[in-house]
Each structure stands twice: as structure tokens, then as C-alpha cells.
């Protein structure tokens, strides 16, 4: 068995051994040190957009008064790294960032609650008119790309940037975007065996036993193609599949 090389870093005074290749955020979370973040998801490549995970670092070979703010979800651990996750500078920036987000999505419960934790109850800035709850973290787009559907995308740029579905045909109705959205900004409707997301309505395959929605046929075809597994593998819930497997074993064993 090969040994994973580790480095020793210090986060908020705690000494931690972190495997080489890990980011500061990953190392901190593994040791239950809270660094807030909105755009990070372990399933996709880190992005560095929300700026909440920005922390202060020092290095052992730097002069003692020299420090730097870095993005912890992107910054790789290295031997002797000293990290402060709640220094005055870090907290100040987090407040400004949350203040800005609150101006962008004044109606989002998630952001309001997070901002309140940092003592911000009302934004110092002009609130966005007709604001939805999207904080432009780009997670939905990254998840859609990771799944391989490439249906949604960010459009335009700067303050006008938004997420939309330029490639509606490619949407498989899997809901991954909506379910990973940190502010629940992507709306979808599920009624009986019908599901609507991004203005596209899908029929949903129901579990043969418990009649709960499983997946859309488009989703099943996509996953089957990607995984090489037969389509009927995806048409049942895990619970039903387990039961069936157990029943088939029972037939083999006891018949």
C-alpha cells in the first residue's frame, strides 16, 4: 500500500496533518473547522467565486508581519502553512461580501440568515430590483457540466450575468442543478408523474412498487449511456432493487 504524503499546517492555532493535494478548505472541513462557502461542492472542481472562504495565510519563510488573503477552496496545503480563518481582515471582508450578496438577493432566507450571523441585518447598498435568489455561484452550471448534460450555462457578464438554459434540448430533467443550488433559486415543479424545470416538462418514471418518482426517461437514457449499465437498472428505486435482488437470491437458494 502506498503511503499518502502529508504536510503539517496550522489552522486557527490547531496543528493538522493534511495530505498533499488537498486544499486548505478541504483540510479544514475534514477537521471540523468551519470555513463558510457557497460555491464549493465536493463533487465538482472548486471555483473560487463566492469569496466567503477567503482566509489569511502566512508562511514560515515570510517576514512575521507579512500575510496574504487567499481562496481556501483553491489554495493547496503546503508544509508549514499558517492559516487564520477568522482574523479581523478575514471577517471584515466576509462582512462586505455578505453585505453585497444581501443587496443582490434581499429575499433569500439562506443569505439573510448567513449575513445575520455576521451581524448584517440590512444591506448598506442598493438592493437589486425584482431580485431572484440566484447568487451567481455557478454551481448549477458546473454540476450540469459534470453530469455531462451541458444544458445550462451562464450568459452575459459582469453584474448582468445570469444562468439560463440555452440548450433546452439537452436538459434531462435530473434536477441536479436545483438540488445543489445553495439558495434554492432554481424552481421546479413535481406533480404525480410530471416534472417541470427550465420551462421544460418531463414525464417521470415511477417506481414499480412504491410508485415514487425515480427519474425522467431522458435521465435514464443518459445515465445508462454514460455508465454502460442497462436502462432498467435506473428505473427502480434503490429499495425496490434491493428487494428484488434479495428475492432472486432467495429463489436461487431455496428453490
Amino acid at each position, binding site marked *: 500500500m502506498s503511503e499518502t504524503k502529508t504536510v503539517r499546517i496550522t489552522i486557527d492555532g490547531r496543528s493538522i496533518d493534511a495530505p498533499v493535494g488537498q486544499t486548505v478548505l478541504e483540510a479544514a472541513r475534514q477537521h471540523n473547522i468551519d470555513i463558510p462557502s457557497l460555491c464549493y461542492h465536493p463533487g465538482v472542481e472548486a*471555483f*473560487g*467565486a*463566492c*469569496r466567503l472562504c*477567503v482566509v489569511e495565510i502566512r508562511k514560515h519563510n515570510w517576514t512575521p508581519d507579512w500575510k496574504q*488573503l*487567499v*481562496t481556501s477552496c*483553491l*489554495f*493547496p496545503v503546503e508544509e508549514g502553512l499558517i492559516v487564520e480563518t477568522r482574523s479581523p*481582515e478575514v471577517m*471584515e*471582508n466576509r462582512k*462586505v*461580501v455578505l453585505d*453585497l*450578496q444581501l*443587496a*443582490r438577493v434581499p429575499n433569500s432566507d439562506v443569505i439573510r440568515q448567513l449575513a445575520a450571523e455576521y451581524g448584517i441585518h440590512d444591506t*448598506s*447598498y*442598493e438592493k437589486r430590483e425584482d431580485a431572484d435568489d440566484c*447568487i*451567481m455561484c*455557478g454551481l448549477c452550471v458546473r454540476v450540469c457540466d459534470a453530469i455531462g448534460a451541458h444544458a445550462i450555462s*451562464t450568459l*452575459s*457578464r*459582469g*453584474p*448582468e*450575468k445570469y444562468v439560463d438554459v440555452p440548450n433546452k434540448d439537452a436538459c434531462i430533467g435530473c434536477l441536479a442543478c436545483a438540488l445543489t443550488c445553495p439558495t434554492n433559486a432554481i424552481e421546479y415543479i413535481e406533480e404525480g408523474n410530471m416534472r417541470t424545470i427550465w420551462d421544460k416538462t418531463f414525464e417521470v418514471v415511477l417506481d414499480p412498487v412504491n410508485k415514487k418518482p425515480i427519474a425522467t426517461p431522458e435521465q435514464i437514457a443518459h445515465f445508462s449511456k454514460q455508465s454502460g449499465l442497462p436502462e432498467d437498472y435506473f428505473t427502480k428505486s434503490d429499495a425496490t432493487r434491493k428487494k428484488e435482488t434479495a428475492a432472486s437470491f432467495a429463489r436461487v437458494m431455496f428453490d
Partner: protein
Amino acid sequence: MIKRPKAFKTPKSLLDYAEKVKKDRDSRKLEVRICAGPSCVAGGALEFRDELQKELDAHAPQLKKAGLTVGTSLIEKCTGCHGMCEAGPLVILEPMEIFYTHVKPKHAKSIVETTLLEGEPVKELLYSLDFTKGGEKAKHHSDIPFYALQNRIALKNVGTIDPTNFEDFLLNDGFKGLVKALTTMTPEEVVDAVDESGLRGRGGAGFPTGRKWKSALRVKQDRVWLVCNGDEGDPGAFMDRVIMDSDPYTVIEGMLIAAYGLGATDGYIYVRHEYPLAVKHLTMAIENMKALGLLGENILGSGLNFNLKLSRGGGAFVCGESSALMRSLEGKVGEPRAKYVRSVEKGFKDEPTVLNNVETYACVPSIISRGADWFSSMGTAKSKGTKVFSLVGKVKQTGLVEVPMGRTLREIIYDIGGGIIDDRPFKAVQTGGPSGGCLPADKLDLPVDFDTLTREGAMMGSGGMIVMDDQTCMVDVAKYFIKFLSDESCGKCVPCREGLKQVYQILDRITKGEGREGDIELIEKLCHTMEVASLCALGKGAPFPVLSTLRFFREEYEEHIHDKFCRGGVCKELINFHINDSCTGCMVCLRHCPTEAITGERKKLHVIDDDKCISCGICRNVCKFDSVDIISQGKIVAGKEPAMA
């Protein structure tokens, strides 16, 4: 005509050919260089060329009698931009050093008859040394301070050669640096020479080029990509465009030398699609060099392999940022990434990549052919060589200027640029593009180099220089740059995307007279976060237009907020237009007013109705008698005389 070989297989074959071309051109007595830069073309340079062609044909017998045969001893050609776009279309006659400005097709006849046949200048086309119609004329272009005070290295061929003509380039020491590198230097020596020259990245950051190249050599990888950043996008800056338009071969030669030094086999030139002439000329040059064996496999028999492609960007400002540029080059959305791993290790396609700016590459051939010592003898202690500036704004002589680093702002603006239009008071110079800053009059004697201006809250950057007079509102200037950056932000990270939007909204209300107590402090706090917590250089640099104007012109912000006063006479909500006693009653303003706000009769004083006036300023622009004043809070802020010192 000398027959050009199909391909050059050895350095000697190239030099021999250059020698033959040189001999052939010795018979050339006279060259008419027509500037075919975009500005001169827009002004009718190509129509002039057609007209000149006709006149030359019509006068062929007389010209021949005078010893001038069109096509051999007399050549007319289109060159790249001469740099003095303001005075275009420009025509230069060599070797007489005659410099004609504002040339129209109708002047072709007199140029042929007076200058070519009689050897006399056409007086009305000569450059006026004091910027007035009847003023003293410059007989030679070397008499013009704008040119005489320059020292052209990156611009050495710009405006002198036909950028589409390979032989023209060869004649001007073309490929001399490349041949020297390939035949007399090891790759290590090439990198050392660039390092010793002290060349720093001309794109703005000023990172030592030699150090970048050396660090690339230390990354042991099979392949290193070589990329040229031609995504210039600063408002008012056009030095890289002009180099690519006017001298594409030099840029490619610089890249070839770099490829030899770094062992790079593949490269890209990334140019914005909005630079069609640069795209056209570079494409032409690449195709031509491929055909001649100067790009591709075993270049000049030296074993150097280098494939070069051109990649066109969509013109997003942020794509000039290195990590965004590389994403764009990969065909992805041009969004920057955190640069915790340097691009010399992981850049284009996550492979080692060396990225340099157009002007940086353009300096390399001269450094190799003339030596590192020669280059480092120019400039200041830490900023060597020359720098191209695009001098624009309220200066008499706008255009491209290349001077050794360390020249003062005053020398550039007053000696080369001729000072402020109408001799109005200087207020500020904005340097370094949108992430740069504004410097006031008491900083005019600062030497311009990478470090000095940065210390003062501005920066030299890629060389943009926008001169402003007293009729400029510094809050409005800050607002302009913030708007630009807000439009050009990629929108990925919060401090840049949301921060710029909010800074803009605050500045907007200040300029509308709706500024609030505490707005300045709110901007400062926000700018601090943008500076330290944004993801890329665009966001980190975005606060500087605001911070530098706050540093040097804070009173203007305070006047806007507290007194609703705009001393520049710019912010529409804070000003009125008023016609003074000098009005002759000519009715011109009255006829031009789009809202019929002006009343008056012939030879009687006109009056502006404030309720109808939309402060468009047309009346002031059309008035020949300086009778329209701009008033803010009861004070004349812009009248005939400068309002405030």
C-alpha cells in the same frame, strides 16, 4: 526585380537574399509613404493613394525626365500607423523627410507637380509647429518634437515599412536577431541575454521577462506553449494594435527567438477580433513565413521547430488577463482562475505556458541583435529600455510615443504632446488603463517607469495616458472607468461583480447631486475588499480609478456631495448653461438647440430657458464667440477663461 527563393533553408540564404534586395533598393531615389493605419484610412488615405497613382501615371514622362521611374526609383507604398493619428491622413516623402498632414485626394496633383517634379514642399500640407494654421511649418519630420524626442525600438519599423511586404521588413534588419540567435548563441545564452537586458513585461504587470523564461526552463516538461497576448483593451490604448498592424514580422521574430531559447514547439498569438487589420496582417505574415520555411519544421536548417497559430478572441477585456486568456484559447468561457499555480507550470491546457505581451516580443529581436547592454543602457535602474505610450485626451498632439523609461510625465505631455489643448490648465493624467490611476499637476515631474507611478497610486501599466484639463470632473472620470470595468467584469466573483455595480451606483448618485453623508467612506470600505478579496487582477485593480481620484481630488467628491457643485462643469444635474454679454446674436446656438430652449433675435442677446435645457452642450460647442458659460452653484465653472486654478 530580385527573385525570391521558394524557401530559405539556411541562415546564409536569408542573409544573401536580404543583401540582394538591399542592392536592388539602392536604386530607389524616392519613397512616398502613405499611412494606412485605420485612422488615416478612415480619413481617406486609400482614396489618396488611388488618386496619387493616377497622377503618377499621368506625369510619368515628366517624372522620368526628372530621373524618377515609377516602380523602381520612385515607389509609393502604404505603411502602418505613423503614430500621429490626430493629423492624418499622413504622407511622408523620403529621403527628403517631408511630412504632410491632413492629406486629401485632391492634394495628389500638387504633391506630384510641386514636390516630386520641382522639389518644393506643398506648404499648406506641412505640419504646423505651433498648432495654428498660419504658424511656422516643419520642413522635415525630424524638426517635429513629437518625433524628434522619441526613441523607437518596439516601433522601429512602424510607419516606415509596408507591413505586408516581406522584403521591406528584411531591409530593416528583419530576422537579424533570429539569425544571430540561431547561428551564434545557445538557447541558454538567448534567455540570459533577455534576462540581462532587464526587459520587463510590457502588458502592464512588469514581470521580468528573463525571470519568467528562466522559471519556465526549470519546469521540466516535454512541451512548453508560447503565447503572445494581443488582447489589448484599455480605453484609449492602441500600442499593441499598431505594432501588430504595422510590423507583424517583428512580433513573430520575437516569438521565434523565444521559442529557440525555451525549446517551445507550438505557439499562439491571441488577438481580439475587433482588431481586423492586426488579424489580417498577422495571418498574412504567418502564412508567408510558413511558405518560406521560417515557421514549421527545421527553421533555417537549425533544427528549430515552431508552429504558430493565430487565435481570435471575442474582445472581452478580461481575456487579457492571463488565466482567462488561456481559457479562451482553449475554447472555454474566458473567466480567470486563481493563480496559485503559475502558468509556466500549468497554463494553456494545464501545460507549461509562457505568455508575453506583443510589445515585449517586439523588443526581443533588437535586444538579441544589438545586445543586452545596449538595451539596459536605456531607462531607469529597475525599468530598462523604452516604453510605448498612447498619449490621448486633451493634449495638442495625440498619438503613439515611444520614449526611454524615466522620462517625466511633463516631458511626455508638454514637450512631445505640445501641452494642453487651448493652453488650458492641466488637471490630471490617467495612466495605466482602467486599473491605473489619476495623477495631479504636482506629480508631473515624476519619472515614468514601472515602480514610480505605482508608488503614487497610479501605474504605468501597458502605457495608456489620458490627459485631462480643468474642464474635467474627477468623480465623472472615476464613474466612467468603473462603468467600463463593470461592463467588462466576467461576473465570476462577488467583490468584482457586485462591488463594481455598487460603486457605480454610489458614484452615479454623487454625480447627480444625490450623494449622501458617508458615501465616501462606504466606497473606501468596499474598494478595500475588492482590492484584497477579488479573484483576479481585474477585480483587484478595479478600485484604483476611485481610490486615486479620492486621494488627489477628494475635495471634488465632497463638493458634489455637500455643495452639489461640479467644478469641472460636467455633471449635468449640477450645472446650467448661460449666455453671457459677449453674445453677438448670431442665432447659431438657437438653431442648433435640440429642445428649442434658446430664445433671441438677430443681433440681440440670446437667453437659455433652464426648464427646457437638457445640458447637452451643443450651444457651447457651436458658439464662435465663447458666449456660453457653464454655471454650477452660481459660479462660472467653464467659460472663456479657466474658471478655477
